């Protein structure tokens, strides 16, 4: 009876990770990893860019992350359960765990600190209203600079929340913290940024 329940549970697990078809395809034929790569490149690159502050370093981090992920794909273990809900993706959490460690290694190795992506904001194209555009760019830079000044874990949590639009649960999985701890990290980070932005004149 118990064995039957376990088997039923496993059958349910099979369809929970929304990336399961792509992961299974990549396990059958590693060249099919391209599907996962295309799906998550922008997210991983973006995360690395906000953490490292330069396109060059972000490219380096993205490259290492995906090469590591492909090489270790056989060791990926899906852990989504029925309680995780329809469309859960543990692959994304796993991938970002790799990205988080790659980024940390790059930061340690190069001794660099995150910088405000002013150069990126300055290359934005769009509005014709130059005055308004310059103001917007400067403010965007200021908002990011305030985030960049945060302690590592708070900054990381805010990037995953605001840039990657991840749920608290996903961030908890990536950072290896409880959901409650992540909520506190985000709250404190947001409070510090509010103070920082409120105390500065643009």
């Amino acid at each position, binding site marked *: 009876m118990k064995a039957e329940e376990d088997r039923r549970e496993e059958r349910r697990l099979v369809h929970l990770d929304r990336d399961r078809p792509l992961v299974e395809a990549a396990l059958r034929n590693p060249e099919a990893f391209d599907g996962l790569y295309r799906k998550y490149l922008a997210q991983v690159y973006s995360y690395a860019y906000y953490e490292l502050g330069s396109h060059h370093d972000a490219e380096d981090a993205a490259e290492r992350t995906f090469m590591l992920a492909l090489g270790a794909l056989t060791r990926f273990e899906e852990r989504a359960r029925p309680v995780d809900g329809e469309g859960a993706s543990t692959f994304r959490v796993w991938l970002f765990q790799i990205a988080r460690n790659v980024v940390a290694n790059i930061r340690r190795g190069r001794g660099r600190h995150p910088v405000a992506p002013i150069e990126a904001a300055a290359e934005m194209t769009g509005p014709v209203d130059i005055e308004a555009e310059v103001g917007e760019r400067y403010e965007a830079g200021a908002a990011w600079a305030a985030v960049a000044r945060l302690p590592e874990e708070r900054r990381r949590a805010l*990037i995953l929340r605001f840039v990657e639009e991840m749920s608290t649960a996903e961030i908890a999985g990536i950072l290896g913290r409880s959901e409650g701890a992540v909520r506190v990290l985000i709250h404190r980070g947001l409070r510090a940024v509010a103070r920082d932005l409120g105390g500065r004149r643009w």
Partner: protein
Amino acid sequence: MRERAREEPEIEALRVDRYLESILVARDRGARLALLDTRLDPALRSTADRLSAELIRVHPSFRFEERLARRLADLAIGLRLPAVAGGEGGLPRSLTPAGGPAFEPGVAPGELLDPAQPIDDGEPFGGHARPILIGGALTSAAVSLAGAAFVAWRLSRPVHPMVRAIRAVHGRPGHEGGLA
């Protein structure tokens, strides 16, 4: 009293979390308004709104994307060869949760992925038209369509008469420097 003071930040953290969720939900539905919780500190709310609007996603350049895709394809071929030689094909493991220990990319034992965590949306662009930066240039989420359109435009461009003339000269019989 002391107990209440200790709980206060946690309650506010929960309110912030709920507000951030509502921002995402509102955006997914194409709405502008998020949950209005009057108990939430206005400074926190406006900072959340501002970060949500200004911390935009950044996309790498097409050149980098394709270069890394080629490197991954090369690695994939290398990974496939041993399996093909062994008659298996593909990577040697299924995804069943009963498999071996999970890969931990340099994560300490206490930092393991908690299977109890509910995970949601894995869409690369979150299903909404949020602006992103491609190698520093602001664009929409339809990056692949833009790339395809550019290639199609290049292919459909009429060849300049001077280019045709050069090709004709280089393509003449006996000319050693003929263009491919």
